[in-house]
């Protein structure tokens, strides 16, 4: 599905799925999870790739689940506090799955084009554009710094010193990002920056787009009508 479906439709379907999940019970969440599963299969994203993407947020998800379970006794959940906590965790899981599916099939430039086409305020699309564009450079910068640290402090195993160096290291990418942003801004000005980031317009909708929007839209609508 990567690059095969119009990104505007993907944004709209994701938004509809997220809103639906936020106000749904188990039955409707199950329907949404099934929709995610079908789209996942069509997109051909491997479970390993999904797992790698989900891995950084697993601790957060666990923390959220535990917090919800602990706080569950104060909730108005039907069928017990644990059920209510489980419902909250399930909603989070389905939204996260939809988000991961969406991000795995929509490259950042496509997302920017879609948001621009959907009349998203320009400062938001510009910020998204630059952050996605330079995320990779910052990751590389951090990797270089990690290698330099490993090479220069190979024999240094004192935990306190290591922690101190690491804490300083954390702030360096920010400094470097600032320096780089200054240079990039100068280059943009030199190239005639007039406050407009050219976004390539999107083409017309295809039959595939119509099928995707029709299927996903009908499924979500049906889940609202027939499930709780």
């Amino acid at each position, binding site marked *: 599905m990567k690059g095969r479906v119009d990104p505007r439709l993907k944004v709209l379907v994701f938004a509809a799925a997220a809103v639906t999940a936020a106000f749904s019970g188990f039955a409707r969440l199950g329907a949404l999870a099934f929709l995610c599963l079908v789209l996942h299969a069509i997109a051909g994203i491997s479970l390993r790739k999904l797992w790698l993407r989900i891995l950084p947020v697993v601790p957060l998800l666990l923390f959220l689940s535990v917090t919800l379970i602990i706080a569950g006794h104060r909730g108005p959940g039907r069928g017990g506090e644990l059920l209510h906590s489980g419902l909250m965790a399930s909603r989070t899981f389905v939204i996260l799955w939809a988000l991961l599916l969406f991000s795995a099939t929509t490259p950042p430039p496509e997302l920017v084009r879609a948001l621009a086409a959907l009349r998203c305020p320009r400062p938001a699309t510009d910020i998204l554009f630059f952050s996605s*564009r330079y995320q990779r450079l910052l990751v590389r910068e951090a990797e270089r710094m990690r290698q330099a640290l490993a090479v220069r402090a190979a024999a240094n195993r004192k935990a306190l010193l290591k922690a101190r160096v690491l804490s300083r290291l954390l702030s360096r990418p920010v400094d470097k990002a600032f320096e780089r942003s200054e240079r990039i801004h100068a280059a943009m*000005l030199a190239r*005639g920056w007039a406050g407009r980031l050219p976004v390539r317009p999107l083409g017309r909708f295809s039959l595939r787009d119509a099928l995707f929007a029709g299927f996903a839209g009908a499924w979500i609508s049906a889940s609202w009508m027939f499930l709780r």
Partner: protein
Amino acid sequence: MSSVLSFSRVSYEYPGGRAALRDVSFSVEAGESLALIGPSGAGKTTLLLHANGLLRGRGEVRVGEEPVSRENISRIRARIGFVFQDPNDQIFMPTVIEDVLFGPLNAGWERPAAVERAAQILESFGLGGELETSPDRLSLGQKKKAALAGVMIMDPALVILDEPTANLDPGSRRRLIGDLGRLGGTRISASHDLDFVWETCRRAVLLDKGAVVADGDCRELLRDGELLEAHGLEVPLSARLADGKE
């Protein structure tokens, strides 16, 4: 000959008071290829950033007949193409062709005409097969070419190159020299690579500690070992070979 760019008694201090430029004066004539040479920290990049108003100090900078000022800065920048030392700072759009289109679309060109011209210019730089490639996937030499293409599409009256051969392998460096020779036009190259300067420039200005130390015929200046050594440089291999000293 008409002057494309002139500096008249330009001085600049960095925040903190350290002098970066001291009374720099010289001009560049149409069609000239000028080298700005000097040791690290001599003020080469700082001076060049004055040409399109990215830095402003004391004295006067003129592009053609116009003094560089806030009022005409857009017009000035459209006439000067600036290729930065690190192409990663200069190339920021998601694909090569989108990056080349950045300048024209900001200048209000119609998209179809801009796309056609961008494809032509990328083809001429040997990047015709990379139009939809992410710049991240290009080699450094290709990135430099893409940056140069993004500048040349605007058909600038003057091209400024800051350390154009920095970090390039010999093959990429050779191809860049070929491209620059083919492009012609008025050009300023700030470089430590004196062999590159020997091959591509007719005139050289030697800058040290923010002041102009020498200004003259490039090859004569690059043969002056005493002068170069006094300012942290040395006679390039090309000059020694030409004089039969190697």
